[in-house]
């Protein structure tokens, strides 16, 4: 995989909760593959808690081949929110707050054949310690599947195997060590626990 392409502010309700203007078009940024982890079901994800408060953003993730979606997963885009706010204030890029190790958590991918044909209307959810934190459908977003790929293609070279984090809806918030994360989207039901870096 060459890169992880991420959309920022693709859901109006999330932009509003962050007191950010709803953009005409979403922002794009990139995470390196080295920031990614694919935890096994009921596995563990170590995170650098001592470096700052870590916030979650649950998102549908595409895997691309020849600019087609060949797989879907759910992901957590993590960030140091305080650092991100500081960088935003200074007009700097966000990468320093969003590219730490394990800041891109991705469930195993499932092929499109495993999803209903109207998968963009299929809800995805994030629960933390059994409590529902985020729920949305890609059809709620500003840009949807084909538009997202077309949009990215206008800015970045897309390589086979690239992943796309498609943006997060409202409900983002902080995480803490030992949180149990449950992700659900169509045939994907995946859970793991957040632990200390050790």
């Amino acid at each position, binding site marked *: 995989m060459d890169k992880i392409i991420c959309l920022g502010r693709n859901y109006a309700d999330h932009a509003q909760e962050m007191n950010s203007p709803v953009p005409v078009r979403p922002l794009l940024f990139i995470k390196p593959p080295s920031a990614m982890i694919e935890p096994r079901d009921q596995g563990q994800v170590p995170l650098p808690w001592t470096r700052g408060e870590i916030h979650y953003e649950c998102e549908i993730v595409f895997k691309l081949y020849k600019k087609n979606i060949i797989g879907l997963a759910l992901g957590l885009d993590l960030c140091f929110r305080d650092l991100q706010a500081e960088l935003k204030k200074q007009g700097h890029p966000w990468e320093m707050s969003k590219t730490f190790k394990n800041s891109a958590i991705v469930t195993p991918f499932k092929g499109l*054949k495993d999803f209903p044909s109207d998968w963009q209307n299929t809800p995805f959810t994030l629960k933390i310690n059994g409590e529902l934190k985020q729920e949305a459908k890609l059809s709620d977003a500003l840009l949807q599947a084909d538009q997202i790929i077309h949009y990215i293609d206008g800015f970045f070279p897309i390589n086979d195997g690239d992943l796309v984090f498609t943006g997060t809806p409202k409900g983002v918030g902080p995480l803490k060590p030992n949180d149990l994360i449950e992700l659900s989207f169509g045939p994907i039901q995946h859970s793991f626990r957040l632990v200390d870096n050790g």
Partner: protein
Amino acid sequence: MDKRKLSHDILNMIERLRIMHDLVKDENYTSISKEEITQDLAETLKKLEEDFKNLLQ
């Protein structure tokens, strides 16, 4: 000959082969048909051999 570019292209082709393998293993032909994968496979293997030979020189 730009060996760095050749190496980059070879690694991209290996990634492409891995994806093709996953598509076939999972019988995932919704976006890319079996025929298209077969054609991609032939083209990629041919180009991979050519680039590998060039890298060896």
